[in-house]
């Protein structure tokens, strides 16, 4: 059409020389879009994110949304980092202010040189002189493109994409490719959105004199990579892990895990011959039922999972103990949000980890995996199902809202090389060759016994499962010694689990007194913080914890350092406590850095935490 060519020829708003307080920043800043929930800005934000990503620049996108369907403020932040940092960064350098309610606060959060793109239909937020302000008549720009006023409300967002692209020199062809990718299947929407982005771009090119220092420049750091949220990654992993029974009760931020899993299963797991499902998804009436179904299914031989968040975990407590004690496989994803109670349902946290470790009354110890990346989500999607069957227990995967619902860069996931592990299951043929089958006899000495699956066509296959006292032959017993033998074997099984869970990722700095330790999404803040600390003269080691139970690497790590900072996203330092208990007499080395305001942790908080503690520590010692 010639049109793109015209656009490409435009080099962005005519640039004037930068004033002294404006530093040029290339591929290393954050931009925030502040809108109203329900205004449909999600697509626009994703387009921006993808366009930058497609220009080869490392990005991460964080959606900060309210527990509300429409009307409350919402923010989307895109961080560009030429160095590849993907943790949240405090503050932002560019703000697109569409929401009058928060505009003042949002603008105030920018330092000198900050760039404000402001919808001129709302009151102009007042900012100090040394911020750069661009007013944009969004309504006027979108009007000619979208005659239907109702639709306009949605499409107007794509206009700011164009404006920002123009300001930052984001290539319009990438913007268009991103829109195409997202809306390719919806022709009308596609055209309207393309037009809106272009209109924004053109208007900005024609009307805004570039006065700020922010710029995007093509790099080559994202080639072949994907952008994906952790919940989708977990869903994909679970599908390739051969999940057969999925149960759920909707709850933010876990719903999208099962919702995308349903999408994949319906597409890829229908029997080619009959069109019938090789999976069963049940929307349960609540989480008590969801976990009961998962354990019933696991008992009956399914690869089963459910996904939930805090309140659901509490409701699963009773069944978690049954699963541990009666040795029932099943996978429970906890996409953590901030509690206690309903808390802030759309804010991230790592506040359940201490609870998961021993969920349920009585003596229980659970296996918990901590994915830190979308790749982990994919891998643990498979691994958790394997571990649940191998260990015959409920396995928890503690993700969080930040990982689960935000967009993360990743290399594409590799096809699994290892076959599915169904654990110790006796077939009818094996039973026929055995002198005797006893469900709870530890014949291998690893605490894990052989089981049979209901429906196994052999008269000796049956056994009785119960949450009350039972002996090796699965018979009811109250004898003190039978009980002790049983729970001691379960403790032994937990020891065995240490050999099966994923090992930590440890980077030792020889000679460093200081070690950082993180798990899950906190990892990204500590690796970035490590570089900042290095500039401050501290060169800490890092330890990415991947699972409970702890493996021996933890004790060695603590032994090798004088002070170990456990960094996490909860008020009470729940993991720091678990680490303290693991390292016993060395507990005095453990320090806790906690970030718990519901926003993803940023590197700066870690740096400040370490520096403050080190200063204090020096004074104390």
């Amino acid at each position: 059409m010639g049109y793109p060519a015209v656009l490409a020829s435009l080099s962005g708003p005519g640039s004037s020389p930068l004033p002294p307080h404006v530093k040029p920043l290339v591929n290393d800043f954050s931009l925030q879009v502040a809108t109203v929930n329900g205004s449909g800005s999600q697509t626009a934000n994703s387009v921006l994110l993808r366009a930058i990503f497609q220009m080869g620049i490392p990005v991460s996108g964080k959606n900060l949304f309210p527990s509300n369907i429409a009307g409350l403020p919402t923010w989307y932040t895109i961080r560009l980092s030429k160095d590849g940092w993907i943790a949240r960064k405090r503050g932002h350098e560019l703000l697109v202010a569409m929401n009058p309610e928060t505009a003042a606060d949002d603008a105030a959060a920018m330092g000198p040189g900050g760039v404000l793109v402001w919808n001129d239909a709302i009151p102009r937020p007042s900012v100090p002189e040394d911020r750069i302000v661009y007013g944009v008549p969004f309504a006027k720009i979108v009007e000619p493109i979208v005659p239907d006023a109702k639709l306009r409300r949605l499409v107007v967002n794509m206009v700011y994409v164009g404006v920002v692209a123009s300001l930052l020199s984001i290539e319009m062809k990438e913007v268009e490719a991103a829109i195409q990718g997202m809306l390719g299947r919806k022709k009308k929407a596609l055209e309207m959105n393309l037009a809106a982005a272009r209109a924004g771009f053109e208007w900005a090119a024609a009307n805004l004199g570039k006065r700020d220092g922010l710029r995007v420049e093509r790099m080559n750091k994202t080639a072949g990579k994907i952008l994906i949220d952790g919940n989708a990654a977990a869903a994909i992993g679970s599908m390739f892990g051969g999940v057969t029974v999925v149960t759920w009760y909707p709850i933010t931020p876990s719903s999208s895990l099962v919702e995308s899993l349903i999408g994949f299963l319906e597409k890829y797991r229908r029997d080619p011959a009959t069109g019938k499902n090789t999976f069963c998804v049940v929307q349960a009436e609540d989480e008590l039922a969801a976990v009961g179904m998962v354990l019933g299914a696991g008992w009956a031989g399914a690869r089963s999972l459910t996904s939930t968040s805090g309140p659901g975990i509490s409701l699963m407590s009773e069944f978690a103990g049954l699963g541990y004690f009666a040795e029932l496989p099943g996978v429970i994803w906890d996409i953590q949000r901030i509690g206690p109670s309903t808390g802030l349902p759309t804010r991230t946290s790592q506040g359940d980890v201490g609870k998961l470790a021993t969920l349920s009354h009585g003596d229980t110890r659970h296996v918990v995996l901590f994915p830190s990346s979308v790749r982990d989500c994919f891998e643990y999607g498979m691994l958790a199902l394997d571990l649940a069957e191998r260990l015959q227990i409920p396995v928890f995967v503690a993700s969080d809202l930040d990982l689960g619902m935000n967009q993360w860069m990743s290399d594409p996931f590799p096809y699994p090389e290892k076959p599915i592990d169904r654990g110790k299951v006796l077939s009818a043929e094996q039973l026929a060759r055995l002198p005797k089958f006893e469900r709870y006899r530890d014949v291998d000495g690893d605490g894990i016994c052989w089981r049979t699956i209901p429906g196994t066509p052999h008269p000796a296959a049956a056994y009785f499962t119960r949450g009350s006292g039972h002996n090796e032959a699965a018979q009811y017993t109250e004898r003190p010694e039978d009980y002790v033998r049983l729970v001691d074997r379960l403790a032994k099984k937990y020891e065995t689990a240490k050999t099966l869970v994923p090992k930590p990722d440890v980077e030792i700095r020889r000679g460093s007194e200081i070690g950082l330790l993180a798990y899950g999404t906190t990892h990204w803040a500590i690796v970035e913080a490590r570089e900042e600390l290095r500039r401050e003269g501290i060169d800490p080691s890092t330890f990415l914890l991947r699972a409970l139970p702890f493996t021996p690497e933890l004790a060695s790590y603590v032994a090798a350092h004088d002070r170990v900072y456990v960094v996490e996203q909860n008020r009470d330092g729940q993991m720091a406590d678990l680490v303290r208990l693991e390292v016993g007499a060395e507990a005095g080395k453990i320090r806790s850095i906690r970030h718990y305001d519901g926003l993803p942790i940023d590197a700066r908080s870690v740096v400040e935490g370490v520096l403050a503690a080190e200063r204090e520590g020096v004074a104390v010692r």
Partner: protein
Amino acid sequence: MTEAPSVPKNRVGLAKAEYRGGKSTLCPGCGHDAITSSIVEAAFDYGVDPQRVVKLSGIGCSSKTPAYFLGRSHGFNAVHGRMPSVATGTFAANRTLIPIGVSGDGDTASIGMGQFVHLVRRNVPCVYLIENNGVYGLTKGQFSATADVGSLQKGGRKNELPPIDCCAIAIELGCGFVARSFSGDPKQLRPILKAAFAFPGTSVIDIVSPCVTFNDHEGSTKSYDYAKEHDEPLHQIGFVPFWEHVDVEIAPGEAKDVEMPDGSRLRLQKIKEEYDPSDRLGAMRVIHEARAEGRLVTGLLFLDPKKRTFAEDADLVEEPLSTLPEERVRPPRKVLEEIMQGFRVGSA
């Protein structure tokens, strides 16, 4: 052990002894033990394959009984009131299984009401037995939610709250098989159980089953004496299994045959008035009137043999999901590549 050659075998080649379970540890005379016997008899007569049965229960004296029948079947004594979810998961994992769920009135109507309602709503194939004694037996005789207004506790306390009628609730929820019986009437209970085995969805059977230790005294409406005195069977029930030809003519108006999906027939013989078990509202009326008058109406209250089941709703393959081989549950490499491509370009 070699068996005496004369032991009779059923259609799947098993002797009755092979349907028995462990020794009961319930109180001698407990109604639940009589139900256990009826299950053994009915499963033997019907020729249920014990290797395909799963016995599921919650917690309570009643919920202990799966250990006392069908010793050759897998059993699962879950947590209190949550057996329905376990049954649902079990069936989802393997649709060829035959779940028998045993629950108590406390286990179902008190703590378990939510899960019960949703099991019925989903029509998960399951023979769901409520061994109803109006009290929590195992915790020593507190009233459950099925205790009748005015019924007396052993200590003399009177129940003030109206009973929850699980049959009425099930009928309201569209359950396709709803029956009430009495543990002391095996002649009625056994054919009902056989019909339930032949029924492909949830069958709810509420069985008055006196607790001899805590609720068998004068003033209780769940005692043996009360049940015997107030029992009003709707019909005489016979079960004619699909593999038996019966050519007996039925005099019109005397009996009615209902065909089950497996070809078996239930023969309902009129006692006083004609009763039509396909009339949902009629069943409700009978239940309400009986409750108001203190009568214990037993028999097949409602039957809709054609109800859509959970397996159909879930559109499951015929085979058990539990044993599908890896190649049927892990999609091929190219699927992952296709998915990855979607996330590369943002079209996923």
